[in-house]
């Protein structure tokens, strides 16, 4: 398989960029593009101490697989893709998502990696609850999904 998708409980096992790069490596691939999302200490004017990720795992993995398949259609069957999204609570700097794309040339790797993160942000069933330094918590306002028949 040239695609790996996964929702992982980060309280059991953290996300690892090396694992993603190793998966997308292949003798014919000269380029690897990687994206990591990490918890920031500040968002929309508030000091953040952590974020909890809630995920509807089966549908999320299904959406990751669909998005990766779309990327292969757009940028070539040689493309290898790895997506892992965290679920659970993370502190500052904790990795919430790791995406890697490997391909013969860099244009495809960059485009595919970017496509996957943008589509996940707008399509995948994942929700983020920010925990603030002042003790308060709030679900981040998100993107409404589109229904399909």
């Amino acid at each position: 398989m040239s695609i790996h998708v996964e929702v992982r409980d980060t309280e059991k096992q953290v996300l690892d960029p090396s694992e993603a790069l190793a998966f997308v490596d292949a003798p014919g691939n000269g380029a690897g593009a990687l994206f990591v999302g990490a918890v920031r200490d500040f968002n929309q004017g508030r000091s953040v101490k952590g974020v909890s990720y809630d995920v509807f795992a089966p549908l999320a993995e299904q959406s990751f697989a669909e998005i990766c398949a779309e990327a292969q259609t757009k940028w070539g069957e040689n493309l290898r893709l790895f997506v892992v999204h965290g679920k659970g609570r993370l502190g500052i700097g904790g990795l919430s998502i790791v995406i890697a794309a490997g391909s013969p040339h860099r244009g495809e790797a960059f485009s595919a990696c970017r496509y996957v993160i943008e589509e996940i942000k707008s399509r995948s069933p994942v929700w983020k609850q920010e925990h603030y330094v002042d003790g308060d918590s709030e679900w981040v306002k998100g993107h409404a999904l589109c229904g399909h028949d």
Partner: protein
Amino acid sequence: MKIKIQMFGAFRVLGQEVELDLPEAAIVSDLRVALQPKVSGMELDELLALSKFANVRVVLADTASLDATEVLAILPPVSGG
């Protein structure tokens, strides 16, 4: 029929899942109507209007029929990544 819906995101305040009693011919949009009384006055009203419903494979159209044997979930606007 009895329909169980898994709660996600801001709807977690209602618990892990919510059970609804709906007529046999109910469709997806009826879930939203049936959830309305449970969220009124909780700032979730607006969010409910923006939410979709899904099974484990697809986001469901509002006009789709319901299958009580399936795992169903409410999907408020998403913020992953």
